């Protein structure tokens, strides 16, 4: 699915990375716990989260995350938006809650970047 279709599916606003909407995405990871994002999220996946501090963007950069999807309509601090633009990481913002966001994407063929943790 293209990021543009994700935007339409989630009725999302594009906060950063308008130029990257033609990017293909296939997988996602969702969490508000950044410790777990660092441990489990895979390169090329979308990151679904309700956290909006600058570390979300730094982590997306470290992990080669394709795009950040901010859920629950959270407002982003200006410094987070600036950093996302600087590091060329697309950020979309949707009013849907995390569960609905994940469900709508899954129904259209986006799967988890891993199915379950080991052990």
């Amino acid at each position, binding site marked *: 699915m293209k990021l543009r279709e994700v935007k339409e599916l989630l009725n999302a606003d594009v906060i950063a990375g308008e130029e990257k909407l033609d990017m293909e995405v296939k997988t996602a990871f969702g969490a*508000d*716990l*950044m*410790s*777990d*994002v*660092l*441990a489990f999220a895979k*390169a090329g996946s979308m990151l679904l989260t309700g*956290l909006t*501090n*600058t*570390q*979300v963007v*730094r*982590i997306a*950069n*470290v*992990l*080669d995350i394709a795009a950040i999807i901010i859920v629950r309509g959270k407002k982003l601090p200006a*410094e987070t938006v600036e950093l996302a633009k600087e*590091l060329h990481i697309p950020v979309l913002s949707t009013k849907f809650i995390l569960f609905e966001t994940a469900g709508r994407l899954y129904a259209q063929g986006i799967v988890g970047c891993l199915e379950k943790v080991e052990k």
Partner: protein
Amino acid sequence: MCAAENILEKHSFDIEGGNFSNAGTVSTKIKSILKQKNLPDDVVRRSAIVCYEAEINIVSYAKKGVISLTIRPNSVQIEADDEGPGIPNIELAMQQGYSTANQQIREMGFGAGMGLHNIKTYSDIFDISSEVDKGTFLKMTIHTQPAKD
């Protein structure tokens, strides 16, 4: 073979304990340096992850520290050397789920006790040593090419 001989590049960065607004900037820099070296994406990514976890720990728990990046023909090495409280029980700190993170750290989404374990997972060689009331030293090595024989 003397490892010091074939250093291609070395960079060092100061980290300030407690400065959360700057947290992660060193890892972003180190990643961009590595990206320009034509290394495999996976090597760059793993180096950035271990660097970031170490950086956040210095900001979260130590007074100050230095993170250095050493590039050799067959490896990337990240060292994190801090002055701070040290880790009284390393074995315990390495366990997933063990954390002494305060409220401020948790509000930012950290403090699940995953960092050191994650560093170990993503490094090819991981050394940790610590002295209480002095500081903590981490050394992470990531091979860029399969080791010869």
